[in-house]
């Protein structure tokens, strides 16, 4: 292989200037002639039957052009083909406050807003189910009719190795309950789309989606329009984090309204609507039982999770499996049992958020390992190093591990913070904690069953030396366009700025499954490399002939093809391209990538967990706790991340730091919580994402393992680095004040309460947890009753 000319260098992203100067065109920036403005009508009820929906007055309101309701799009849809339980707009029944019911298109936004108040909805209220416990127990209230037990959406049980023998061998067994509170993505760009109804009956949708291909499929199904007549263009996403990877009501409504009016229709959600669109982190109750020998070797793990899924499926079946799938890839686990249950509740649907389904169990596992280290008198860093899952191995649940850099991550994060010398040695109120984690570089299987590539790319070279790469990836700020340009440039020997990127357009670019599960660098990177290599071969052949040297000696970089042994003998890239086109015809090649088979098991449920490569992370967090006010300050977060190869180290560090920031927010206070079915804090003032003033000192350490199957050795870096941050902070809090927080977030109130009552642990003690989930609802109802009395009086 050439020495690398582009990859591994801290080059600015190809789209940085557009983003910095405001030229990047987000969906809401799109203005088309004759464009209409859409708004959604949302349910005010957490659970109710729609007895009557009357839009006639709104339709008659001057300036209103069209209105659509659930009845116009009754086809079931959803991101996972096996669990489609949603409709574009509510039909007959609403299942959470904020669920879209109808959509208005008007000449301006004010008119659309005013028209909403003219739509009459008569509800027959049903009892709302708001907690995991109620959802499991209540047979008399069904959010979805097809739940056979209570309001269970999905129940899975997997068992590997001899669990009983494992626990029998253990010298010490820990049995702990955990709770991870739900939270949301809070992208700064709210969801937005513009659909244009074209004269020929086609429709084009510009939308900030992470999954243009899956959306394309769902639009065909719901609209009843062939995919050939629908074009989806993923606009740059102003942050997504998993929150834009489902098909959404406003996207269907915009398309249908555009088709009906033959005009462009724009929807931009307001911030509160983004909180209702949600699809964020599931609240999860967990029970984790781990057996260890006296020196800490794990003998068995039994993990149980109960996920609060909200009102619809979303990715829930995958989320459920993911809570159990990746616990085995970090440390040796010879016997493992996993039981997962996801329930429906009358809250906005949960889905994938950065770390999808693995973040909650990783918190539990790493917190419990810290307890085991304490129980056995072991240094938590040295202990983890001793029990690592080896590289090039298979886990007990049959996952193939290739490169595995967790050991180096732990060592380097530990060294950077002098962890072992400082742990348990800091003054009162100060603490340091460590945790490890892992994540997938893309899912081994697509969301719908098929044997086609997961990612395709086309590269073409024009006669002036310009290169264009076409790939269906969605640029969500993670740098996928830059990755496509960089890999193309590296492979061909040009510079990234020579490469024009066409991404996220279903009409122009080959399919890529989307920007989810940290798959894009690995899969689209490989597809792009595959396409570019085919052209590179043609160019190399021509260059060798013209320079009169064997083709093996030809190298390309910095817009030149040259003789490796005599670099003064070279041709410009453009000259080579012209000669190659004369020789081979139009220079265009397609490439693709599909994960290898045999990377996972064959049992039912084996589809979730396998990945062509796993990334690994370790985090050390340093904290200060104010024992009088309960305020937890995170002083420093050091994260080491095994990304295979850093194609662009600056971008990888950005992902590591961004993940650390997001994980920090999740444990310090972000929570998607409800009061009697009403979201308690649906605004960026009340939902506390940390500001730059709050954010700890963040340090990123890149660990490279050069994965044999990754493009130029790369693995993922977009999600994994979030996972260790949360348990590292919880473990640091224990080091500081001697209190185990087995639940998130760690708030000042919980700290003060624990210190006042001299508790050594805060967290659930069982499934029920002793809290009364109906308290808030009763309060809301009580005040409504009191209001009636006040009115009567």
């Amino acid at each position: 292989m050439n020495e690398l000319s582009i990859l591994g260098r801290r080059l600015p992203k190809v789209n940085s200037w557009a983003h910095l100067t405001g030229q990047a065109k987000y969906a809401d920036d799109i203005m088309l002639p004759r464009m209409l403005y859409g708004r959604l009508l949302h349910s005010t009820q957490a659970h109710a039957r729609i007895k009557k929906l009357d839009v006639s007055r709104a339709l008659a309101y001057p300036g209103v052009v069209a209105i659509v309701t659930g009845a116009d799009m009754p086809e079931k849809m959803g991101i996972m083909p096996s669990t489609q339980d949603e409709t574009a707009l509510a039909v007959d029944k609403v299942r959470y406050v904020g669920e879209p019911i109808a959509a208005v298109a008007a000449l301006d936004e004010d008119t659309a807003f005013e028209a909403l108040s003219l739509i009459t909805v008569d509800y027959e209220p049903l009892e709302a189910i708001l907690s995991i416990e109620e959802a499991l127990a209540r047979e008399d209230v069904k959010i979805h009719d097809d739940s056979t037990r209570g309001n269970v959406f999905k129940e899975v049980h997997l068992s590997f190795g001899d669990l009983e023998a494992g626990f029998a061998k253990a010298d010490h067994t820990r049995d702990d309950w955990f709770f991870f509170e739900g939270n949301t993505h809070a992208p700064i760009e709210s969801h937005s789309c513009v659909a244009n109804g074209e004269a020929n009956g086609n429709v084009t949708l510009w939308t900030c989606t992470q999954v243009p291909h899956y959306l394309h499929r769902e639009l065909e199904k719901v609209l009843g329009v062939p995919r050939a007549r629908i074009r989806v263009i993923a606009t740059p996403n102003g942050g997504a984090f998993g929150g834009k990877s489902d098909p959404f009501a406003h996207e269907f409504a915009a398309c249908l309204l555009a088709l009906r009016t033959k005009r462009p229709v724009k929807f931009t959600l307001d911030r509160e609507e983004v909180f209702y669109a949600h699809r964020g982190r599931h609240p999860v109750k967990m029970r984790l039982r781990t057996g260890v020998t006296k020196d800490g070797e794990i003998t068995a793990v039994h993990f149980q999770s109960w996920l609060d899924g909200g009102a619809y499926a979303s990715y829930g079946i995958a989320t459920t499996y993911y809570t159990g799938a990746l616990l085995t890839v970090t440390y040796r686990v010879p016997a493992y049992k996993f039981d997962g249950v996801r329930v429906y509740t009358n809250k906005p649907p949960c889905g994938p958020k950065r770390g999808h389904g693995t973040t909650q169990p990783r918190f539990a596992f790493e917190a419990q390992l810290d307890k085991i280290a304490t129980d056995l008198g072991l240094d938590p860093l040295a202990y983890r190093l001793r029990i690592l899952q080896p590289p090039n191995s298979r886990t007990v649940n049959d996952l193939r591990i290739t490169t595995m850099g967790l050991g180096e991550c732990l060592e380097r994060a530990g060294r950077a913070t002098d962890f072992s010398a400082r742990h348990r040695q800091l003054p009162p109120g100060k603490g340091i904690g460590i945790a490890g984690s892992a994540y997938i570089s893309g899912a081994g299987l697509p969301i719908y069953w098929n044997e086609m590539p997961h990612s395709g790319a086309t590269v073409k070279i024009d006669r002036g030396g310009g290169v264009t790469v076409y790939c269906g990836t969605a640029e969500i700020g993670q740098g996928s366009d830059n990755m496509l340009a960089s890999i193309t440039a590296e492979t061909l020997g040009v510079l990234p700025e020579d490469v024009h990127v066409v991404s996220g357009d279903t009409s122009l670019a080959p399919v890529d499954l989307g920007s989810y599960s940290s798959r894009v660098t690995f899969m689209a990177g490989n597809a792009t490399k595959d396409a570019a290599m085919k052209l590179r071969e043609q160019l190399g052949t021509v260059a060798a002939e013209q320079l009169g040297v064997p083709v093996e000696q030809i190298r390309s970089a910095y817009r030149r093809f040259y003789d490796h042994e005599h670099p003064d003998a070279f041709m410009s890239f453009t000259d080579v391209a012209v000669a190659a086109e004369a020789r081979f015809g139009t220079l265009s090649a397609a490439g693709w990538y599909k994960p290898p088979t045999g990377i996972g098991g064959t049992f039912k449920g084996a589809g979730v967990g396998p990945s062509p490569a796993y990334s690994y992370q370790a985090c050390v967090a340093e904290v200060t706790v104010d024992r009088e006010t309960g305020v937890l300050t995170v002083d420093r977060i050091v994260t080491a991340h095994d990304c295979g190869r850093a194609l662009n180290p600056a971008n990888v560090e950005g992902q590591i730091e961004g993940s650390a920031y997001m994980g920090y927010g999740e444990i310090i206070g972000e929570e998607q919580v409800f009061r009697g079915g009403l979201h308690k804090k649906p605004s960026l003032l009340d939902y506390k994402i940390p500001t730059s003033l709050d954010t700890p000192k963040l340090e990123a350490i890149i660990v490279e393992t050069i994965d044999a199957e990754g493009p130029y050795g790369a693995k993922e870096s977009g999600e994994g680095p979030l996972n260790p941050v949360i348990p590292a902070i919880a473990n640091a809090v224990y080091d500081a004040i001697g209190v185990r927080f087995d639940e998130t977030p760690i708030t000042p109130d919980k700290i003060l309460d624990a210190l006042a009552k001299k508790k050594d642990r805060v967290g659930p003690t069982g499934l029920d947890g002793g809290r009364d989930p109906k308290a808030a609802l009763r309060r809301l109802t009580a005040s409504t009753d009191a209001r009636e009395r006040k009115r009567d009086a």
Partner: protein
Amino acid sequence: MLRLPRFQLHTPATVEDAALLLREHHAAEQDGAKTGTPGITVMLVAGGTDLYPNMKRRQFTPSTLIALGRALPRGIQNGGLRPAGPLPLGVTIGAGATLAAVASDTRVLSGYRALAESAIAISTPQLRNMGTIGGNLCLDTRCNWYDQSLFWRMAEGMCMKTDPSVVCRVAPSSPRCLAVASADMVPALLALGASARVVNSEGERVIALADMYRDDGISHLTIGRDDIVTEVILPPADGWRSTYLKLRDRGSFDFPIVGVAAAVRLDGGIVREARLAMTAVGSRPMLVAAAAAALIGSRLEDDAIAAAAAAAHKIARPMDNTSGTIAQRKKTVPVFATRALASLREN
């Protein structure tokens, strides 16, 4: 996005014109106490940093707004001002002075530190460049059952503040609205003994700031609907030391969930005068009278501070309607009182 309701905007050039306009429009208005906040038809606006978001959420839908940007004084001046100001050695701040201007003014920084600290603790740099001291004094009370969109409040079924026929959501048996006083500058100004100049179409008067607030989340201001706060008047700073501590979830954006201001006048190390004031722990900002009594004559010894902190703790009444929890906020009050007072000791 959320958009403003339609309204008519007046931009009078003088406070007198503004007062006349206000009276004229009030005459046509229904009684706000009967209609709830959405029934208020005329309002004043200065920086607009609080009012406009509230209007977007339809907490207020005035048909008329009187913008004071042109009319209000915005200077920060020495002396008690015209005519024959009673406080020749103090400082007068025009109600139109921005929070950023107050926070960075050298006289405020040197003589009235609590005020500068409270100003810089408000919201974000952008909002401090727009928001005014007069606006902060008249800031609407806050409640997380009330500071929500029209849609949310419809789903909730409204509350006492937006619909007087409904109970208070925070405590259904409460006879009054429990929304929370949330202006950072007010406790600082109370601790500093500030007054406000108030103008209406009949004339003007100076009132002690301590008398400007009422323990009621709906009618939290004692001044009339025709009144315009035009100036804040600070007494001489000689010998005074002061500070403001704010509890909030984040280092920016957030309203206080506890705010404690302390000021003492020291003479030879002995406290001759003292004021301790709080906000965000009730519907009105409050001076802790018993704290002053505990401190005067002391040398800010631990015992005296503890007594003052206990007095603050006793009257703090946080409710479950802001961020944080009742217990956390209640516990933080004496901690902040102690820290604030201890920081005022002379070295």
